[in-house]
């Protein structure tokens, strides 16, 4: 549900079996003592790169909407997000 994958009947069993095998391998990580080890999220020295806050050219509204499956009045159109009262 969380990942909005839209599983079909039978999918759960299929993936559960495969993912159990993969997680079985991954469980070997628990063999290692990592209490005093810091986590690594990225490996190079570049950090907190900021640019000057200066406007620069960007996509036009038309370009941004060019790939939209459905657009109306310059907006992306989506199905209703609330039940009608």
């Amino acid at each position, binding site marked *: 549900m969380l990942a909005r994958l839209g599983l079909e009947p039978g999918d759960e069993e299929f993936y559960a079996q495969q993912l159990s095998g993969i997680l079985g391998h991954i469980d*070997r*990580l*628990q063999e*290692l003592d990592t209490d005093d080890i*810091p986590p690594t999220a990225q490996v190079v020295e570049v950090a907190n790169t900021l640019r000057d806050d200066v406007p620069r050219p960007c996509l036009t509204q038309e370009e941004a909407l060019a790939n939209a499956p459905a657009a109306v009045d310059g907006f992306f159109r989506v199905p209703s997000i609330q039940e009608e009262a």
Partner: protein
Amino acid sequence: MTDPTKLGIGELQILLRSRELSAKELLAAHMTRIDEVDDRVKAFLRRTTELATDQAAAADRAFESGQAGPLTGIPVAVKDVLCVRGVETTAGSQILRGFRPPYTGTAVSRMFAAGAVMLGVTNCDEFAMGSSTENSSYFPTHNPWSLDRVPGGSSGGSAAAVAAGEAVIALGTDTGGSIRQPAALCGVVGMKPTYGRVSRYGLIAFASSLDQIGPFARSVEDAAILLRAIAGHDPLDATCSDRPNDVQNDFDAGVSGMRLGVPREYYEIEGMEPGVKAAVEKALQALQGAGAELVDVNLPHTDYGLAAYYIIAPAECSSNLARFDGVRYGLSDQDAGNITDAYMQTRRQGFGTEVRRRVMLGTYALSSGYYDAYYVKAQKVRTLIKRDFDAAFAKCDAIVSATSPTVAFPIGAKTQDPLAMYLCDVLTYGGNLAGLPGISVPCGMSESLPVGLQILAPQWREDVALRIARAYEVASGVKAEVAPV
């Protein structure tokens, strides 16, 4: 004149500059080659003939006016994960079918600015997830050396196109081995740069802390020329370094006096084929003969690399792939009654089995209650793996091993067993987790199929990896050849 589809950049530039060969003729020769072999190899998803024709005409004008750059007129192929303005780019997935990017990514832009002529878009595993190109939602690509075998993956189309003489050079991407492994299996040169060496702007993201764009070629020199053309600082990617573009320094300096680390763990890895090991050991002798010293090093956490990778990469992918929701681009279920159903239906129809598997794995690893046990644990093990490399590089200039424990395997052999497929990259994950540059160069054949030698160097030392690869190529006389398709 020699068939130009067999030549490298240096030889072609001589012919092009002397006007003995026009860019238009060179393009025509490659289009003919593609027409002849690609119904069997299936490296290309799409041809960009109009763009190529315009670029070749511009290249010829550049030669006439003396304005030619390092890649002027050179026919190239581009993996289906790199955005090119107006050219359908789908990451091998149905969910992006019909997507035409509104801009061109930095690596491709720089390649174009250097004069390249784009032949087309190459096949790959869906969202670059796979080691055989069989996860493409379109069709599998075939290994030019043996058509019933896989080309490796995920950049299998780019590797096969270069191996088959359909393109001189190509761009791929490498998140866990996706340039180096297909290069090894197709008998060409492939290089993953240091994380941060090449801008990822315009790359459809898979795992953002691991992804890098890099070159395929049939010689180390051509790989170096393409890498130099695309490398360097880019304000559009905050992780792209502003270090100097020194990748080709001391290219021909040889390996005399260099220390090459031989990690026992990489030679005793489970599933290592004797023929692969023998070819790599012969390559070590050639490097020794050229003056290098071999030193034993250890990478004690090698057996944990795959496990750490298959938490970190799926975690990042589950986050990155959240954007494919059918609202702004690509496939969209327009019949759903509400937004949640629209997301569900779009993603059910658009994502293939491996992508769904990884999104599930990543979502699970990041979910509350499992976050520390899986995701943080994997990040800590990533630290241990990086420290292994730091310690090894204190004793050597680079690490040499096989790129893949096996040669190319038959199509269909591993599709039912995801873990077996994941083990294909057991020698390459480390380079991504530690952010290292790594190159695979052909080092002979086993069972009539190519074997790759992997050279891993410290961060930012592409120059060292390329210099050793070049010295090996010269000393051994083993050079990538066009496969006789």
